[in-house]
């Protein structure tokens, strides 16, 4: 029981990955959900655990897909190395961006990451010999997962590729969950809480934030690499402002209270976006209204909503079961209920 509780989020993610195919009929769509969930995890690492709101996550997704694309096209590496390269390059880009922007705080930091996103976009646009410019990199192959020539997992069909991405995703989630629970994760939380104090007790806050940034860049780069293989291309639009914006929106819609929230946020955004866009060309208006609603009424994001629903169900069930202990129970449950934010 204790173990289950300990790994509850990882188990939840495994369940999600298994249930997703039942909910969506398209393997590509399901894969996209996981890929953006990965990107949102990277973003949440910054927003929820380090207190940094990055409007430049598209940079890392973009360079990740370029890195995978270029390494598959020109270096002819196999599946895993190409993804490793995406992580590396994503982390490297984050190092550069972080180096310049992390000294700034709050809103100014947001602006800087945003400006960097623009700058990387124009860089990618101008370096068309490398990136393919506006056309993007085309014809990116999708190798099977193989070891010494033996195919372990083919990736030809969309569902095969989904299973591969799912495995990678669960693994990454577990690693990230472990990281946020680690000493490093806690220190980051402390820094996001009070920088001055953190510096005064001996932490090099710039370095810690940079570490978080690089980690986030690597994770997002990996998402970019997976995305490039999924679509067979690394387009310029991956590095656009809009990509950064979407990743951020997914993260906030999900909520920042837990890593799992990002999975919810990404799934919701991708699926709803996909659904709405097929219904009404002006679907962005609905998205806009949704964002307004989240910012007004759902401050803990979907995760918060889910949490309070569960609490309510629990409360209801327990109240029915044990009439006598009713009073105590309510008190106990209150404690679990997320605190309302005062406005």
């Amino acid at each position, binding site marked *: 029981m204790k173990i289950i509780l300990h790994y509850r989020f990882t188990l939840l993610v495994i369940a999600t990955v298994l249930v997703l195919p039942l909910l969506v009929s398209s393997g590509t769509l399901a894969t996209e959900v996981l890929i953006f969930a990965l990107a949102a995890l990277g973003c949440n690492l910054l927003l929820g655990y380090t207190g940094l709101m990055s409007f430049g996550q598209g940079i890392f997704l973009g360079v990740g897909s370029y890195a995978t694309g270029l390494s598959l096209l020109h270096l002819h590496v196999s599946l895993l190395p190409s993804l490793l390269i995406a992580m590396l390059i994503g982390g490297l880009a984050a190092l550069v961006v972080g180096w310049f922007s992390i000294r700034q705080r709050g809103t100014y930091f947001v602006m800087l990451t*945003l*400006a960097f996103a623009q700058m990387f976009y124009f860089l990618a646009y101008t370096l068309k010999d490398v990136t393919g410019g506006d056309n993007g990199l085309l014809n990116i192959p999708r190798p099977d997962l193989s070891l010494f020539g033996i195919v372990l997992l083919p990736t030809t069909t969309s569902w095969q590729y989904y299973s591969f991405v799912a495995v990678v995703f669960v693994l990454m989630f577990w690693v990230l969950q472990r990281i946020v629970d680690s000493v490093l994760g806690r220190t980051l939380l402390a820094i996001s809480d009070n920088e001055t104090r953190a510096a005064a007790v001996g932490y090099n806050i710039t370095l810690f934030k940079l570490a978080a940034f690089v980690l986030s860049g690597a994770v997002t780069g990996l998402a970019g690499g997976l995305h490039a293989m999924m679509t067979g291309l690394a387009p310029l639009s991956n590095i656009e402002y809009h990509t950064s914006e979407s990743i*951020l929106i997914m993260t906030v819609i999900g909520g920042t209270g837990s890593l799992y929230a990002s999975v919810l946020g990404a799934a919701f955004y991708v699926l709803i976006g996909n659904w709405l866009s097929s219904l009404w060309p002006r679907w962005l208006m609905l998205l806009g209204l949704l964002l307004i609603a989240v910012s007004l009424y759902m401050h803990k994001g979907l995760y918060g909503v889910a949490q309070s629903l569960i609490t309510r169900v629990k409360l209801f069930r327990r109240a029915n079961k044990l009439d006598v202990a009713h009073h105590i129970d309510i008190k106990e449950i209150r404690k679990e209920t997320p605190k309302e934010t005062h406005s």
Partner: protein
Amino acid sequence: MNIYLLQIANGIGIGMLYFLLAVGLSIVFGLLRFVNFSHGAFYLIGAYFSYQLGVMGLGFWWSLLVAPVIVGVFAWVIERFVLRHIYALPHHFHILFTVGLALVLQEAVISYWGPLGANISPPDILQGVVMFGSFIFPKYRLFVIAVTAVMALLLWWVLEGTRLGAIVRAGSESTEMVSLLGLNIDRIFSLVFALGAITAGLAGALAGPIRGVDPFMGVEALGIAFVVVVIGGLGSFFGALAGGLLVGIVQSLMSTIWSEGAHLMIYVAMAAVMLLRPNGLFGRSS
């Protein structure tokens, strides 16, 4: 005349419009302490309102005057009845809200006016060009420079020279303390937010005859405004002025020197400023 001088003069023309576009973002941003991602959308609806009023026969001058005011009233209502309730939240909610609002406005514009753009003609007396020797400048652009310069002076006086300006700056530090002094800070915030929207709306209305109107002009404008504010410094009036002019001139000069990179160079200029002065040209250290 020397082509570089021509480009600098042209850059000033572009830059003043950028200033007007960015200054509202900077004021709202510095004083209310949040990033208004719907600033570009205010620019957008400013342009469309002036277009619509023109179509309805109000004439250029009245449209130019009335459209920003409508935008201001709209912004005031939004602030007064909705936005106000989320000030206390972490700033990502402000961003989320204003991004949402921008999307709604943009899509509303498309729904009403269609996804195609339209043209706004300047009034007859502002049509044509002025010649300074071999130097040609459209009359309308000169007019824009004049209007933005007047706006600049007006804004500067309001912010630095009046008691209202002092209250506004005080409010950016602690709203609670301002209310403890018996001042209705909420009203002042609504006012500032509306003021920011008016400048954006005016910029949009002024830009219409130069760039026409199209539903995506807001997104582009927001990008420019951000760069200007980052270069100039958060919340700084003079920063917006310097940043706007710098961006305009760089852009203009680069179109002669290395036209492929003109857009990229705006960002390179921004990176250079950031390296030398991390808080922007006129920014206070945070």
